[in-house]
């Protein structure tokens, strides 16, 4: 489903350039739950942002379902982000002046769905992450774990091909972290959602199928943890 070939990302030029990614290659199949791990500065977040089309690679190829997404113009990338990719930020990244439901259904409206249909989709997504009855609350009225679940609902409401999560539990305690990871696990196992998650917590590994480890911008290991049937694409 995702094919990454010799992906490089340099910040700056010449000798002072920071080489965040030095040529990373791997494939992710549909339905996989992959963790990207590594020390701080290893390039894992940079990699995830490129995969989610939030940043550009300096060199290399990146395809999703055979489409060379790395070379798409901005308008198409925007549409791709809206319809094919879900991104979960470390700090939730919710719009503070919008209710939980509005944070979710604004994307459905952008896709052209009616307000009613968008609202129903949002409620369904919020239910799926265990936030039934809290759809009218604004982010300030929710706990950290709840905010992250709203962010997950926003990402999954549009039923994206791939869900990217950048250290989704970084600001959460263990209980809330488990709730979030349980949601991911359920999405992956029950709905076959492809998930790529950046994490630095070793205990998160128990939730995933596969672990890609980066060090100084280079992929140093790609290890399968749980064997399961995945759709080849």
């Amino acid at each position, binding site marked *: 489903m995702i094919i990454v070939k010799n992906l490089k990302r340099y910040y700056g030029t010449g000798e002072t350039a920071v080489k965040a990614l030095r040529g990373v290659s791997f494939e992710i199949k549909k339905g996989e739950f992959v963790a990207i791990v590594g020390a701080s500065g290893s390039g894992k977040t940079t990699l995830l942002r490129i995969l989610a089309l939030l*940043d550009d690679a300096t060199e290399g190829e990146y395809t999703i379902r055979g489409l060379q997404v790395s070379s798409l113009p901005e308008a198409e990338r925007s549409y791709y982000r809206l319809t094919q990719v879900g991104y979960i930020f470390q700090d939730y990244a919710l*719009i503070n002046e919008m209710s939980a439901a509005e944070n979710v259904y604004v994307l459905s409206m952008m896709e052209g769905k009616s307000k009613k249909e968008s609202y129903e989709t949002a409620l369904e997504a919020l239910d799926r992450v265990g936030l039934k009855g809290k759809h009218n609350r604004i982010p300030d009225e929710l706990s950290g774990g709840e905010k992250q679940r709203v962010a997950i609902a926003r990402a999954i409401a549009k039923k994206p091909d791939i869900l990217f999560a950048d250290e989704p539990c970084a600001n959460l305690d263990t209980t809330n972290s488990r709730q979030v990871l349980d949601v991911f696990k359920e999405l992956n196992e029950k709905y076959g959602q492809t998930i790529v998650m950046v994490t630095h917590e070793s205990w998160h590994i128990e939730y995933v199928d596969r672990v890609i480890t980066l060090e100084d911008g280079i992929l140093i290991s790609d290890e399968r943890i749980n064997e399961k049937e995945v759709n080849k694409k």
Partner: protein
Amino acid sequence: MINDIRVGALIASSSIKRGNKKTLMFIVFVLSLIFMNLVFLPSMIGGMMVLFTGYMQDYPFGDVVIEPSGDNTYINNADSVLQKVRAVEGVRAATKRLDVGASIEHKQNVVGVTVTGLLPTEEYEISRYPYIISEGDFLGDLSRDEIIIGAAIAGTSPVFGEIYDDLGEVRAGSLVEVTYSNGVKRTYKVKGIMEGTFELVDLNALVHYKEIEDVYGLEGSKATSVVVRVDKQGTEEQVQDKIREAGVNEQVFTWADKSETLIKQAMQSMGAIDAMSKFVSLIVGAALILIIIYINVLHRKKEIGILKAVGITPRSIVLSYAFLSMFYVSLGILAGLVLYLSLMLYFQANPVIFYETMEIRPVIDPMLLIQSMVTMLTLSVIAGTLPAWSVSKESILKAIWGR
């Protein structure tokens, strides 16, 4: 595009619904003052225009005035003109006048004036001259050696006293010597002092029409103007046309035509101040809206990045700020209107006093209000969208994480 509008409206409405209400109130208050500034001064100037044009109708020009055609000094056979004019439907009254230049002397004080020769009994229907006699009486049909002089010339005017040269406390019954422009000298007894708190009146003198005819040796009912009053205000232009159709070949003006020249000249400097004030208000208003939205945008730069990151189009984001800014300005206009109308009511009851006696009441001009509203709304869209457009063009990483 329709999706962009819907999403833009949703983002803007959430921001309004859950944004800081105190900030909103402050913004609206300031915008209302900007709106007030745009419309208040022109309303006051409009009030002055109404006052001055009122004077023009009540004294020199009436509703319609007929003046000599071409280079002629006089209307020849004014009585024939009057006969035609009086027969015109919609004409209430008409009279002839003779305006000449002269100087008046009293106890070695000399001032230059315009002396108007008029038919006293006809003036009751035409002008307010007979009603503004502050001392003594108005002229009568037999007043051949009598004169009415303006308070500013007499030296009794509390308004113009310190501005113009005067004859030094001339009273009713005083004798003054008038030297006409043709050199003829006449001595008159002051029958009355007129006080209209209007320069064109208070710097004028009135004598009987026949006196000017006699002094200048005029025959055949000559006049420098024929002044006409109409039955119904607002019909001046129709009456003007009818007078022309009735065969009057002299120049026929409405009071508005005459005021346009005279008042416009007088108001030019006021107009410049008005235009300057409007321009400054607009610039200040635009800058303020720009600053408000720019601060708002900077404050929410990360949100803009997030919205872009999750797939919201830059166009929706820019539209949301356009809506937001239009909302601020609409509320500002509304509050400004309430404030403006309250002030209008206040000044109707408590007019601004000019020259101690002239009461200026501001005039509400609906066109001006609409023009100001449209201008402010247009500015709000421009000022609101520019900063949002600029931020929405930034890369997502820069908007969210500043790099």
